[in-house]
């Protein structure tokens, strides 16, 4: 049994057009455009401070107000820049799994399921997702007692359950050990392909870029001098 997204059919691309980002005293990037096709993972690489996490914040809608954002970000035919984070349908994964420590594993995943479903439906979706992540029957587990790999998979499932239209990955593999890294990467990219999600990955690790199905953008070029 698989988790079925609401809007099956071809996904929508994530389109960044002529993006500029500035602080009052300096320019961070200018004239940056990128189209991430459904099912594609675009990798952004670059030294810390080059503005790659700022770009993710801009797409997610969590920029601090001191930044000035120009250009357009579109997804599902909507301009995201004016929408609040919760209405953008952009899922995020961070270095840490960030499972909510006060909820159990099942409740964490259920937190991602959209409202408007019956109890049984929610339960079924979460159970199916737990199953896919190799966590079947662990609904009641305290998230802190899970292994690093289990936590990472649970965090991905929580995000997928919220039916995102695009995915942002902020170095989600860097905290895992080498063997786990590869397996989790395949797990994430497998879901991206299956769901046809346009995905943006920020990383330091060239191996991530190699494995990612999509273009690699080196960011030094855009860091305004």
């Amino acid at each position, binding site marked *: 049994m698989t988790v079925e997204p609401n809007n099956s059919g071809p996904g929508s691309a994530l389109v960044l057009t002529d993006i500029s980002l500035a602080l009052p005293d300096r320019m961070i990037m200018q004239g940056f455009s990128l189209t991430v096709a459904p099912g594609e993972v675009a990798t952004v690489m670059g030294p810390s401070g080059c503005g790659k996490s700022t770009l993710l914040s801009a797409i997610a809608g*969590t920029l*601090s*107000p001191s930044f000035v954002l120009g250009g357009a970000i579109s997804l599902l035919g909507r301009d995201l820049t004016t929408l609040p*984070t*919760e209405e953008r349908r952009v899922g995020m994964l961070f270095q840490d799994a960030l499972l*909510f*420590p006060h909820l159990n594993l099942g409740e964490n995943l259920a937190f991602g399921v959209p409202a408007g479903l019956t109890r049984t439906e929610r339960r079924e979706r979460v159970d199916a997702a737990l199953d896919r992540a190799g966590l079947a029957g662990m609904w009641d587990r305290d998230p802190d007692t899970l292994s690093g790999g289990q936590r990472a998979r649970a965090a991905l499932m929580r995000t997928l*359950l919220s039916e995102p239209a695009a995915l942002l990955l902020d170095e989600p593999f860097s905290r895992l050990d080498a063997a786990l890294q590869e397996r989790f990467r395949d797990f994430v990219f497998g879901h991206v392909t299956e769901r046809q999600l346009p995905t943006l990955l920020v990383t330091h690790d060239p191996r991530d870029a190699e494995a990612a199905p999509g273009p690699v953008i080196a960011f030094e070029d855009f860091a305004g001098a």
Partner: protein
Amino acid sequence: MRSGEIGNTWLRIAPALTLLAFMGPVLAGLTGTLLPAFGYLPGLGGTSLSIAFWGDFGDYPGVGSAVWRSFWTGMLATVLSLAIVVIFAASWRGQRVFVWLHRGLAPILSVPHSAVALGLLFLLAPSGWIMRLVSPWATGFERPPDLALAPDPYGLVFVLGLVVKEIPFLLLMMLSGLNQIPERQSVTLSRSLGYSAMIGWIKIVLPQLYPVMRLPIYAVLAYSVSVVDMAVVLLPATSPTLGLLVMRWFNDPDLTYQFLAAVGATVQLGLVVGAIVIWWGAERVVAAFARPWLSAGGRGKLSRVLALPGLGLATLAWGLGAASVAGMIIWSFAHRWRFPDALPRAYSLGNWVNKTDGLLDPALVTLVTGGVAACIALFLVVSCLENEQRNRLNPGRHLLWLLYLPLLIPQVAFLFGAQALLVAFRLDGSWMAIIWAHLLFVLPYLFLSLSDPYRRLDPRYRVTALSLGQSQSRVFWTITLPLLLRPILIALAVGFAVSVGQYLPTIFAGGGRFATLTTEAVTLAGNGDRRLIGLYVFAQSFLPFLGFGIAALWPLWRFRNRRGMRGLV
């Protein structure tokens, strides 16, 4: 959707409204004090401005020595408390004994000033506990000696009482300041350069720490220069402070003394401002002299000389505080406890059975005032902090000054005027008046306690929850609040404890109709019934303690199966 909009609108106006609820009464109160000080108080026939009452003030017998006493006792208490805390932290930070003593001192923070004062009085009096412990075998006294030990005419016991109470506060503020600077790296680095840990701490950590501690230190100074309840208990009537004179005039049945009280309250304000300015100047001088010393290369091989006195004084302060409360609790159960017995000959519950009738009303007033004030303050503080988070605002440091204002202005200076206004609007002696008066002091402390954990909560939890498509308000109720359950409960307990300890706000806003445990206990100080005082001190100390107990235990139980909450809660 609609309720979400109402919530958002509320959050946007919350900071302004909080400031108004807070600054409004303070400024109005100050005006209400300044006008009568210059003769304007229409209710009592003062309709034109004059400085006549300043002459009366200057002529009042003993006023000069009272002003001077207020000044030097407050200064000395602040210098001593700060010195002990700094020396203790510099020499024992990072060692187990520091953690122990810090844990021991924390409960004393929640005991009201007046309770410590009453306990200290019993401890140090000629017929007190310490004298009993050393009599008659060491002193030969079969009866209490006729010595003015406590209260003493010099005000030394008064200074001691202030020091015992301010040390835990300064220590707490120091620890929260240390969270904001790279303490461990600084000390490790300076040790690797050959400095002793203590000198490294003083030369590298302290200069970074002091700016963060400046406002709390000023608050301690302002409090010590103007405190009334501790002075009532620990100073003899013949050696009053300025604050005591103001209270005497305020309570005088001859209403023309109200003008004198207003002048006194204004002078009290000037005295606090003057003390802060002098302290500020002294900071400059110390900094100028210390600067060359910082880079002079002295490694401080002999610095261990200060370590033992630092530990000894901090332990002494803890011991005096703990013994003060313990002595009074024993009194509340004592049946017969004659001099020079070290402990009661016989115990009984008679006190608790017979005398608790009078205790119930003040206890109830204390509970309701503190509970309501803490809840209102929590609502306002969380609204402000949540607004800050949602709009990703950077809190400015100047805002902290505003918050500290009621703690830097002597209570009597604006409560006197606020009381006049309350009378004018016929609000004195109402629940609203007394709760509002308490709120002014509950709010800043509650904010200080909650703002750090609120701002430090990993913002990615909120971002993750929002990116899952949940609304702002749902994320607030289901993620932010539960994750912050422990700091929120602790902030409530702090607010409640602050309210329990308040003396002047109840006196001024209560219009004589409200008595709390604290006002009753201070009133009893003069009558010498130690069993009854013991009962009040017990109740005064127990209520805040209960609050902190609940705040510590409930989250543990609620999240007993959530290991990840242990670091957070």
